[in-house]
C-alpha cells in the first residue's frame, strides 16, 4: 500500500461517499467517533477519578454511562455493516435478475436468426449473409457476457453447483483446442499441447474446468499480436495436476498484475487495441479453481508474453 492509498483510506468522507452511505450509517465514520469517545472517556474518567476519589460511586457511574454510550455506538456500527452486506446481496440479486431477463430475448433473437440463416424460409443473397453473420456474432457475444454475469452472480451467492466426476483432463483440452483451431488460425497463432503420458483421471466438475481452460486459452490466443504461439503443458506434480499455458502475447504491465483476477478489471495495454471482453474470465476462473481445491497464478512480462497456471488435486 503506498502513501497515496493510505491517505485515501484515511479520507473517511470520501470512503463513506464511495459506499453511498450517510455519515451516521457509515462504519468508517462511526469507528472514528467511537475512537474519539474512548480517548475522551479515558481522560474524563481519569479527571473524575482524581477529583472524586473519595466517592467511588461517582466514578463507577460515569464509567457505566460511558460504556453505555459505547455500546449504543457499537450496535449502530453492526447495523451499518449489515446494510453494506445487504447492499452487496442486492447487487448480486440484481445481476442475477437482469441477466435472466436478458436471456429470453437473446434466445428468441438467436433462434429467429438461425432460422433465417438456414435458408429454410427462402434463399439468402451473399450480401445478406455477411450481415446475418454480424448479427449472429454480436448476439453470441451478448449471450456470452450474460452467461458470465450469471456465473458471477452464482459464485457470489454461493449457488454454483459443483458436480464432481472423474474424467480425462487431456481429452478435454484436446477437444477445446479443436474448437479453437479456426479462431487461432485466423489470429495467426499456433497452439501446441504436450501432456505428460499416462496421466490419471481428475475428479472435478468437467463443465467448470472446461470454462477455466476455455478462458485461459481464449486470452492466450486473443492477446497474441500479429503472429505467435501458445503452448499448453499438463503434468502430475505430487498429488496435483499442473496445467500451464504460455503465450507470446502482449503480456500484463507490472502495475496491473495485482488486479488481474479482480472482477471487471481490464489492463490498460489490452484496452488500447482490443476493446472486447468483459473482464470476468479470470475472476470466474480463479473462483472455480479455488472451489475445486486448486490454486491459480501467472507470470507475465509486458511485450514478451504471459504464462498462466493452475493446479487441481488428483483425488
Amino acid at each position, binding site marked *: 500500500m503506498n502513501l497515496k492509498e493510505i491517505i485515501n483510506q484515511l479520507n473517511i468522507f470520501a470512503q463513506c461517499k464511495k459506499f453511498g452511505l450517510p455519515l451516521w450509517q457509515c462504519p468508517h465514520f462511526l469507528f472514528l467517533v467511537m475512537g474519539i469517545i474512548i480517548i475522551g472517556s479515558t481522560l474524563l474518567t481519569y479527571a473524575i477519578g482524581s477529583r472524586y476519589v473519595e466517592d467511588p460511586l461517582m466514578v463507577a457511574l460515569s464509567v457505566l454511562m460511558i460504556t453505555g454510550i459505547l455500546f449504543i455506538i457499537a450496535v449502530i456500527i453492526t447495523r451499518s455493516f449489515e446494510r453494506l452486506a445487504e447492499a452487496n446481496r442486492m447487487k448480486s440479486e440484481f445481476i442475477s435478475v437482469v441477466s435472466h431477463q436478458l436471456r*429470453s430475448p437473446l434466445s428468441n433473437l438467436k433462434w429467429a436468426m438461425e432460422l433465417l440463416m438456414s435458408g429454410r424460409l427462402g434463399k439468402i443473397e451473399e450480401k445478406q449473409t455477411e450481415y446475418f453473420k454480424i448479427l449472429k456474432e454480436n448476439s453470441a457475444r451478448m449471450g456470452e457476457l450474460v452467461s458470465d454475469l450469471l456465473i458471477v452472480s452464482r459464485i457470489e451467492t454461493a449457488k454454483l453447483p459443483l458436480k464432481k466426476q472423474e474424467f480425462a483432463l487431456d481429452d478435454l483440452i484436446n477437444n477445446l483446442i479443436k474448437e479453437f483451431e479456426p479462431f487461432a488460425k485466423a489470429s495467426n497463432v499456433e497452439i501446441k499441447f504436450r501432456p505428460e503420458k499416462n496421466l490419471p483421471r481428475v475428479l472435478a466438475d468437467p463443465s467448470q474446468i472446461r470454462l477455466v481452460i476455455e478462458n485461459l486459452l481464449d486470452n492466450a490466443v486473443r492477446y497474441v499480436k500479429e503472429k505467435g504461439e501458445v503452448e499448453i503443458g499438463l503434468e502430475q506434480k505430487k498429488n496435483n495436476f499442473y496445467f500451464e499455458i504460455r503465450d507470446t502475447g502482449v503480456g500484463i504491465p507490472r502495475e496491473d498484475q495485482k488486479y488481474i483476477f479482480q472482477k471487471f478489471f481490464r489492463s490498460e495495454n489490452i484496452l488500447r487495441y482490443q476493446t472486447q471482453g468483459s473482464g470476468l474470465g479470470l475472476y470466474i476462473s480463479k473462483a472455480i479453481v479455488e472451489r475445486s481445491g486448486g490454486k491459480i497464478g501467472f507470470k507475465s512480462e509486458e511485450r514478451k508474453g504471459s504464462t498462466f497456471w493452475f493446479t487441481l488435486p488428483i483425488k
Partner: protein
Amino acid sequence: MKKVLFIEDESALQKTFGDILKQERYEMISALDGETGLRLAKTQKPDLILLDLILPRVNGFEVLKKLKEDKETKDIPVIVLTNLEGIGDVDKAIELGATTYLVKAQYSLEEVVQKIKQALGE
C-alpha cells in the same frame, strides 16, 4: 402427422418453432400459459410436449407435475426448454418426469429440432 404441443409464453419462439416444425412436417399446437397447456395436453393428445418453466398462471414445474399425475397424459414425453439452470432446477424437472432438459442459451435451433426428432423416435 405427429403433434407437438409447445407451452411457452414468448410468442416470438412460438412463431419460430411453428415455422420450423411445420417444415419438418409436424403439427404444432401453441399454449401461451400453463393452464391452457394442461387443457390442450388432455384434449389434443400430442405425441410430444415442449415445456418452458417460467409461465404465467400455472408455472412449468406445476404443469409437469400435473401432466405426470394424470393417467391420460403421463406417457407423453416432455422436453423442458428453458433458461432456468439454477441448483436443483434440472434435478427437480427430471425427478418430476421430464425426458430431456435443454437450456435455451446452450443449444442451436437445429440441435433442438434434433432432440425433438429423437424424442419422437425418429
